[in-house]
């Protein structure tokens, strides 16, 4: 039986369910010091003075550093996007504030001492004098001529403009019978892995080892080396067990470089673990876009064009990818639809907030939300069923590979297939009948759909590299495989899993190609000193790029095995087949198990074919020809309590297609978590700053992660449309749920509330926002009387109520 395709239980789990995992904060070293940071309570201010004298004198404090101590030791923080032909205004960001602060939480001083308590107390001793500057937090206001400037030296708050299009958008919208226009706010969120960031740096004998709770140890090694003026082989980054990432750990952090530098300076290991409050304030945020979307169609529903003008609030500085993220949405702005003209225009803006960067989906959830919410809005305008409007415009299965008007080529798809599957699980007509009947009883239910595709498997280097999209990084992935003398297998991947189950599913890939069980295969990741250089985990790339590299490396190794066996058994290499756990001579019972082949290759190399190298070890570097494009059809059913505004998710159905399923258990898990992330954004989660730039949602008390009580049971199923881009036929699945979910939820809420006069709503659909929308809609409809208020009496105004066209 093949291992691939089986719902194999995870190899990762035994240690994690017994408390034997090793996360960064679990680690200690002899002589280890602790670090903390003094952070700005001001959102925008000149730093007049910093008095660290009392802190330095506190017993147990080893050092207190400010930017002056750092002078010349390391450069400003890097940003890796240099798009050809686009000017990106780039402010310098130093690991510690220089002269001024531009957001709440900006680090001003680093304190290193003997214990967590000592450095916390010493942080209280630091006296910083600020001269407050005007603050801007509203991205639209930030572009007005009289706005305060976040970086006056750059002369503007506009960071850059970027466009991608195909077809004549104005002509296309001119030909439409109906054009809807919506202003869609996709609010700021936090990645919020349950493990906060942490790092432990140990500089000794000229070499730096750092354990870090990161998704990207290989990037961190490169940046640490560059900034500290070291060569890479002297820097080793280890991502041990990592407690979730969701993009929040796809970053090179100021704290990391400071820890490395401090460890060198003090000749002691130094550890820092962020508090949750720090995470909410200074671990990069996601989303935060205001889009004006126009979608045009003929009266029969045929789409003519979509134009998205995106204003992206990037915050005060850049992380490694900040300004590039909104553009990723532009790559899928046609969604799953055949639209002749598609245009995406991005404008970035600085505000006095923390910077945004990649959070699960990164640009694609925003684009999908725009498209799928607008499809429902258009259906309403046309008087058509929203699912019928979608089906009428699907790119047909026969047209793949499908070239979008803007040049991106979708690899494979069968959008009708996932919708058909959805309707097998969901009685749509029955729901509509029930919905109507329940409304008579004052029960408001709604259904929302989201038919999506996304671009992942980052990335074909030629498409995303310096000459393409402008990333100063390639997109390939590495794999190395070694059969040990006694027949066990060690596999090295350049991806860096942090909960996905790589150790299990990569072992499945190898098992089938070598005729051994997955339990004999050990997958190593997250350590830059073992295995070849890799490019880490993000952008749903690990399987489609990293998994393929492993498959190819294993096939190289299997080919060598076949030659060895053929030589030993005096057969032709092409006659050696893998069967019953043996490399066997076809049509005979003669063969050798992997352990025998390995023993021969390592211990008796003189018996190998003439000229063959001893040992059994291969590697492969895979650079894909194209991205992969998972897709699916999701439906969300909600009930809204119109008296409280509370939305309850009754059912959530996710029909996805991620190509060939290698481990269905893991795929479902990724979909569940991804959908929960999207429901969280749609209903509960929001990073809020007030007009003074103060962070209002600085803890898990204010930032409402969904709990078990709010989440429904997820109903999942799959179609299988293999990708032609890799031999495994796989696409990604880590971000798909998040990309699909938010419009399904929001469309459902709007669908429930239409009889109450609500035809549009922005996320998050919190009880307050929904109640206000009902009461504004209801104010013009006397029959929808609200408790405690006379019919016709105006409800409270909401500053967050969007305008809609």
């Amino acid at each position, binding site marked *: 039986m093949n291992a691939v395709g089986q719902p194999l*239980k*995870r190899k*990762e*789990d*035994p240690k*994690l*369910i*017994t*408390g*034997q*995992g*090793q*996360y960064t*904060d*679990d680690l*200690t070293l002899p002589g280890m010091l602790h670090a903390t940071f003094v952070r700005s309570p001001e959102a925008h201010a000149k730093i007049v003075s910093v008095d660290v004298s009392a802190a330095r004198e506190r017993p147990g404090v080893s050092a207190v550093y400010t930017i002056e101590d750092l002078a010349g030791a390391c450069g400003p923080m890097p940003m890796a996007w240099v798009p050809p032909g686009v000017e990106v205004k780039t402010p310098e960001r130093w690991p510690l504030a220089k002269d001024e602060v531009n957001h709440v939480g900006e680090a001003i001083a680093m304190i290193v001492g003997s214990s*967590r*308590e000592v450095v916390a107390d010493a942080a209280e001793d630091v006296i910083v004098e600020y001269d407050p500057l005007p603050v801007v937090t509203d991205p639209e206001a930030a572009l007005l001529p009289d706005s305060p400037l976040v970086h006056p030296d750059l002369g503007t708050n506009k960071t850059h403009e970027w466009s991608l299009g195909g077809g004549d958008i104005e002509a296309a919208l001119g030909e439409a019978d109906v054009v809807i226009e919506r202003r869609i706010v996709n609010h700021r969120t936090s990645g*919020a*892995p*349950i*493990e*906060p960031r942490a790092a432990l740096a140990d500089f000794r004998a000229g070499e730096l080892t750092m354990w870090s709770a990161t998704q990207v140890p290989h990037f961190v090694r490169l940046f640490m080396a560059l900034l500290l003026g070291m060569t890479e082989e002297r820097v080793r980054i280890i991502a041990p*067990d*990592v*407690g*979730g990432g*969701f993009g929040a750990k796809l970053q090179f952090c100021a704290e990391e470089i400071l820890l490395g530098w401090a460890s060198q300076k003090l000749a002691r290991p130094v550890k820092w*673990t962020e*508090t*949750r*409050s720090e995470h909410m304030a200074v671990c990069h945020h996601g989303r935060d876009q205001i889009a004006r979307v126009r979608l045009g169609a003929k009266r029969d529903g045929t789409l003519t064009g979509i134009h998205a003008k995106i204003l992206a609030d990037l915050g005060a500085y850049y992380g490694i990818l900040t300004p590039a993220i909104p553009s990723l949405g532009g790559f899928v702005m046609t969604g799953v639809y055949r639209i002749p003209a598609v245009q995406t225009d991005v404008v970035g803006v600085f505000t006095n907030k923390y910077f945004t960067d990649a959070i699960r989906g990164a640009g694609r959830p925003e684009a999908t939300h725009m498209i799928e919410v607008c499809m429902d809005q258009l259906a309403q305008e046309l008087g058509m069923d929203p699912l019928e409007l979608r089906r009428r415009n699907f790119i047909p299965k026969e047209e793949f590979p499908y070239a979008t008007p803007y040049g991106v080529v979708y690899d494979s798809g069968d959008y009708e297939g996932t919708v058909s599957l959805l309707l097998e699980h969901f009685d749509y007509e029955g729901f509509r009948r029930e919905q109507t009947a329940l409304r008579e009883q004052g029960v408001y239910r709604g259904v929302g759909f989201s038919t999506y595709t996304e671009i992942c498997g980052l990335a074909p280097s030629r498409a995303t590299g310096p000459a393409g999209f402008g990333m100063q990084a390639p997109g390939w992935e590495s794999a190395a495989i070694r059969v040990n003398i006694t027949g066990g297998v060690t596999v090295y991947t350049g991806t860096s899993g*942090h*909960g*996905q*189950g790589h150790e299990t599913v990569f072992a499945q890939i190898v098992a089938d190609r070598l005729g051994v069980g997955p339990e004999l295969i050990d997958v190593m990741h997250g350590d830059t000193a073992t295995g070849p250089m890799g490019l880490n985990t993000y952008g749903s790339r690990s399987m489609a790029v990293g998994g393929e590299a492993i498959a190819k490396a294993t096939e190289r190794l299997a080919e060598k095995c076949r030659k060895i066996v053929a030589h030993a058994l005096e057969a032709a290499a092409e006659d050696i087949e893998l069967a019953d756990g043996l490399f066997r001579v076809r049509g005979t019972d003669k063969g050798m198990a992997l352990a025998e082949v390995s023993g021969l290759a390592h211990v008796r190399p003189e018996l190998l074919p003439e000229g063959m190298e001893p040992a059994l070890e291969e590697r492969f570097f895979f650079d894909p020809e194209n991205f992969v494009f998972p897709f699916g059809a999701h439906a969300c059913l909600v009930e809204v309590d119109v008296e409280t505004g509370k939305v309850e998710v009754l059912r959530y159905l996710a029909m996805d297609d991620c190509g060939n399923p290698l481990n269905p*258990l*893991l795929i*479902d*898990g990724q979909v*569940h*978590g*991804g*959908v*929960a*992330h999207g429901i969280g954004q749609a209903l509960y989660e929001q990073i809020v700053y007030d007009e003074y730039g103060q962070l209002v949602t600085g*803890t*898990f*008390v204010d930032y409402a*992660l*969904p*709990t*078990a*009580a709010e*989440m429904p*049971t*997820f109903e999942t199923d799959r179609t299988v449309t293999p990708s032609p881009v890799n031999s495994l036929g796989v696409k990604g699945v880590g971000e798909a749920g998040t990309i699909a979910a938010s419009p399904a939820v929001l469309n459902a809420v709007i669908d429930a509330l239409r009889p109450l006069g609500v035809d549009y709503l922005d996320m998050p659909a919190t009880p307050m926002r929904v109640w206000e929308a009902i009461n504004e809609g209801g104010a013009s409809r006397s029959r929808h009387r609200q408790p405690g208020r006379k019919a016709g009496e105006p409800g409270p105004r909401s500053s967050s109520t969007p305008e809609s066209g």
Partner: protein
Amino acid sequence: EPRTLLVHTLRDTLGLTGTHVGCDTSSCGACTVHLDGEAIKSCTMLTVQADGREVTTIEGLAGADGTLHPLQEGFWERHGLQCGYCTPGMIMAAADLLARNPNPTEEEIRHGLEGNLCRCTGYHNIVRAVQYAVEQTGART
């Protein structure tokens, strides 16, 4: 230090790092342990308050011979964890739930775990894991 929290004593002094810290507001439950048999958030208790009382952490849940607790089995069997960071707290909270209510409904499981946050699983398989433990426990008694 008199102000040392129980979770820090467990982790830093006793080396029992299976109990985790995920927030600073008693919201996430990653630090859940049992105190005299009942689940508590060990980030919200001073070590001195636990003086003379019995603390059980995730490290103490499996049998002495290494036999997994039915909940540990359930989390493994039903893919109830991904990154694993919330898992020890989630298991300890679920054990407390089952001690008080050996045969909970799905609704009761979901509400019983409200004080523990997970970002990976969407809770679906955590609920299944607890149900697995309920079934196993029922089958064994």
